[in-house]
């Protein structure tokens, strides 16, 4: 079956680039933990377990190769977070970057928010391609001249230099979360953003670091009565008063900040009744939502739980309008997946630019795309074997029945250590970034 993409059922995906070490022995610090395109798609940021952020920039399309959209090359690398120690609780705070969110660009510089478990930072990424030369009191190498030797005056001028990209932390938003931060989301007002941990959501002003407003608090007075936690949160893309948060029980609550300061009472509750046929020992925990994303239009939102992707119309709370099975063949294997911890994997999901296709990851370095319009889905693989430039990705098939056809992969031979948790789709073009454990694959639509 042809690939899914952009409303055209004939989209085929080709390998474009892969970033990261070829080594099979993965250094833990290199494990990619988040991937995010900026609003124009020109920049692609990744965060890793070692607390680093690497930003790739798309080269402008060359006239020589109109078939290819520009390649992504390293633009900036910086250490965003360092490991810290909470002395009060005797706990180490991991430097792993949980999320990166770009701010809409307002001037020449780019801004992004990056967060680990406890602290959010606003980074400014700016270019410097000229430097002043011709100072009167300083030599070119910076040494100060003896003022007595200065006999003439000149006006310093800017001269071009090699491009330097600088990343500097402009704000540090710390000490506002008792539990582990799982989400950040920039508001459409471009002035505020939210950060969510397991039990609370805080609202920040981007300019103010020493205080935040708590807008959701689901911590019970008696912690033993805890039955659900917040798993993800996001602002509506257009309505600056609206945000949603998902829970470990598979529900989504939509809140309106105009209603009250503390949004504990939701405006809408999205919940699908459980299918009694699917009830099993583990069905409660696989309903935990690992990601929630609004469509670009703001009309829909998508949730990812362990086995499926659901699309909800924000006007209908009773059930999703579409449900896509990501890897239903795993339903009979939940016990083993619990034992090897895979059942706790938090897969993310993403929309394409015009909200016609959604994508999410799976195991064995497979990722899945679901075309909403054409009702087609495809399984593709990110692997070094398929990494010849511009080679077309062949759809993969998993054999679930008894008989395994040629080219099909049996469920038992899936590698559960190779998981794709983070994927991102260029906001405008059919370019996708897919993160395996320590490699970042970039695929593009095949252009003729």
């Amino acid at each position: 079956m042809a690939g899914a993409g952009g409303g055209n059922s004939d989209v085929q995906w080709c390998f474009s680039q892969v970033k990261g070490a070829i080594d099979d022995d993965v250094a833990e610090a290199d494990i990619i933990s988040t991937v995010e395109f900026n609003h124009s798609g020109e920049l692609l940021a990744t965060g890793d377990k070692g607390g680093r952020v690497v930003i790739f920039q798309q080269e402008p399309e060359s006239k020589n190769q109109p078939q290819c959209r520009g390649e992504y090359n390293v633009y900036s690398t910086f250490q965003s977070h360092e490991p810290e120690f909470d002395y009060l609780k005797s706990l180490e705070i991991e430097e792993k970057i949980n999320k990166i969110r770009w701010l809409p660009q307002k001037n020449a510089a780019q801004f992004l928010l990056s967060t680990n478990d406890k602290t959010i930072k606003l980074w400014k990424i700016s270019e410097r391609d000229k430097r002043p030369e011709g100072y009167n009191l300083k030599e070119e190498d910076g040494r100060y001249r003896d003022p007595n030797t200065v006999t003439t005056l000149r006006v310093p001028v800017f001269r071009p230099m090699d491009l330097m990209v600088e990343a500097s932390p402009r704000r540090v938003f710390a000490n506002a979360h008792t539990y582990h931060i799982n989400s950040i989301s920039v508001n459409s007002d471009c002035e505020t953003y939210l950060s969510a941990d397991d039990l609370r959501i805080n609202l920040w002003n981007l300019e103010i670091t020493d205080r935040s407003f708590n807008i959701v608090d689901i911590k019970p007075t008696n912690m033993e009565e805890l039955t659900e936690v917040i798993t993800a949160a996001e602002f509506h893309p257009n309505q600056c008063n609206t945000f949603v948060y998902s829970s470990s029980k598979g529900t989504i609550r939509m809140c309106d900040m105009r209603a009250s300061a503390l949004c504990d009472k939701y405006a809408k509750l999205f919940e699908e009744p459980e299918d009694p046929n699917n009830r099993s020992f583990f069905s409660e925990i696989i309903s935990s939502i690992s990601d929630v994303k609004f469509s670009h239009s703001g009309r829909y939102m998508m949730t990812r739980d362990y086995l499926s992707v659901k699309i909800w119309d924000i006007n209908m709370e009773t059930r999703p309008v579409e449900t896509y099975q990501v890897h239903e063949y795993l339903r009979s294997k939940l016990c083993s997946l619990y034992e090897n911890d895979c059942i706790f994997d938090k897969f993310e999901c993403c929309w394409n630019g015009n909200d016609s296709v959604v994508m999410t990851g799976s195991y064995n370095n497979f990722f899945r795309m679901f075309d909403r319009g054409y009702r087609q889905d495809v399984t593709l693989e990110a692997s070094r074997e398929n990494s010849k430039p511009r080679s077309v990705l062949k759809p993969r098939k998993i054999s679930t029945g008894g008989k395994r056809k040629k080219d099909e992969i049996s469920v038992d031979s899936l590698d559960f250590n190779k998981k794709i948790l983070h994927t991102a789709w260029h906001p405008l073009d059919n370019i996708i970034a897919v993160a395996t454990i320590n490699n970042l694959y970039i695929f593009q639509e095949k252009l003729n």
Partner: protein
Amino acid sequence: MSETTMEVNTEARRILAVSISKLYSARTQRGGLRLHRSLLISMIMRSARDIYHSARESEGPSGAQPTPEEPMDAGAEEPAPPGPQPEPQPAPNSSEPFADEPDATEDEGDCEITEDKENLSPARQSRKRRGKASAAPDFLPSKRARLEPGEERHAAPPGSCRVVPWESLVALSLNRVIPAF
């Protein structure tokens, strides 16, 4: 016991053992205990424990086979009162990290698993242990004192019900997991 029940039992016990080891190993991981994950594991443990007990109960009181005290069987049947049910009894104020409790295992320490005894309806307040060939010694109060960290329960008198040590471990693990946050 029927074969299926035995299988279910074994499976439930295995899952419980796996869950406990996950909780213990979570203590040493970087970044500290993760609330979400701990909650999911404790949910699994609760379900496994419920399945285990209901499987044993479905066998009926077998008479010859002394079962561990099962106040929680009754608890499991009860319609859920407000508040969690069956739920671990309030643990000691534990802001301490996940405590070491492999010591306090042996006996029929199941009281802490289940009902809030204060709020039981009178009809339910039967202190009879079901299906036990050798009843609990009379001198043991049915209301159990809370365990303080590090405290041990007195060992069960010999010849008492065949108690699975890990069951109390489960109960204590559930007691400690979430309140530790």
